[in-house]
């Protein structure tokens, strides 16, 4: 079931690389935003989400801080990982064994041949009311993030590689020169 898939996913996946397609839909099902990108993750706590098209944005967790770079705005927003990661979707994926401290997990059964689990962030700061993870044969396939306005961010992973060899530079972020650096 969903929780077993999540647990086994944690046990035998300590790194991921995948493409993703993200769609944000409002309460009436209207599409608000669509973006394509690629993500990489190294347990514990290191992750990188590169949004490529139609806009560019990078979210990098280096294990200590989370860096968010928006080239259009020429702004880097940085937060210490404990505050930012807490119960964010990235934490759910990059998290280690202390998952049940940050999330309440519930089985959601099988739907469109995925095993689903619901993860409810215990800390409301994450911006999401609830997160659903869909697994296909214990491999993460989809993620749904539901916010308090009834919007859903659906992230569909494809070309997911489990335990690829990731070079550690990937999770190092150095603010581009001239970019405004903001945050703690």
């Amino acid at each position, binding site marked *: 079931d969903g929780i077993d898939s999540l647990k086994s996913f944690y046990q035998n996946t300590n790194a991921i690389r995948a493409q993703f397609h993200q769609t944000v839909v409002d309460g009436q099902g209207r599409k608000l935003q669509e973006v394509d990108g690629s993500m990489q993750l190294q347990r514990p706590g290191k992750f990188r989400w590169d949004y490529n098209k139609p*806009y560019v944005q990078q979210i990098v967790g280096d294990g200590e801080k989370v860096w968010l770079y928006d080239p259009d705005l*020429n702004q880097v*927003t940085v937060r210490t990982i404990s505050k930012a990661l807490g119960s964010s979707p990235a934490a759910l994926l990059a998290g280690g064994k202390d998952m049940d401290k940050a999330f309440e997990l519930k089985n959601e059964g099988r739907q469109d041949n995925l095993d689903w689990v619901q993860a409810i962030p215990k800390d*409301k700061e994450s911006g999401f009311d609830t997160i659903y993870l869909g697994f296909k044969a214990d491999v993460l396939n989809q993620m749904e993030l539901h916010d*308090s*306005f009834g*919007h859903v961010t659906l992230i569909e992973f494809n070309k997911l590689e489990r335990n690829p060899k990731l070079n550690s530079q990937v999770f190092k972020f150095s603010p581009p020169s001239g970019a*405004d650096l*903001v945050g703690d």
Partner: protein
Amino acid sequence: CATMQPAANVQSSSTAEVNQQHLKSIASINHFGIQGRIGVQTDNRGFSGSTRWSHAPDSDSMAIFSPLGSQVATIDASSDDGVILVADGKTYKADDTETLTQQTLGWRLPMQGLPDWVLGRPSANNLDSTSEWDASGRLTKLSQDGWNIEYSDYVAASGFQLPRKITLRSIDGYNALASQKASPKIVLKLVVERWDVIAEPLPIK
């Protein structure tokens, strides 16, 4: 629509007439929609994400999204029933957007002047302003009502020349109401990805 007022002590690479012509060309815009990216910088916190904003002559409705696409806040301001802000599942009300956003989001949104500023024109409520403009008369710098505004890029949208990149910096120590203590320093950045503009024909006076 915005009345044309002569901008004081102006130095520019084009004559005032070119600027007046440009301002006239956008004077008839009083409804617009914006989809874009918004960045906030204050002394100790930063935010960047995206926004969808629709403006009508007497009402504004703005949604702000986090980098992951989740909605952070909605702001609905209208001249007759004040401002309603929804965030984290709670609803807040006040008379003006600037104080309400400062209290609830920790940074202030100058909704009073912003609809004009974002179009690249001084706000009409006859506050004095100083401005500079480029060779085709488009505003490059404007300071008004406690804000220094920079226009670093323009784009053609439905036949109008409209700003694409805008940076608003609060002027230190300036407070509009004498009673207010000086509001904290803040930088707001807006990058417009999509303009939807409705311009009614100018009333013939």
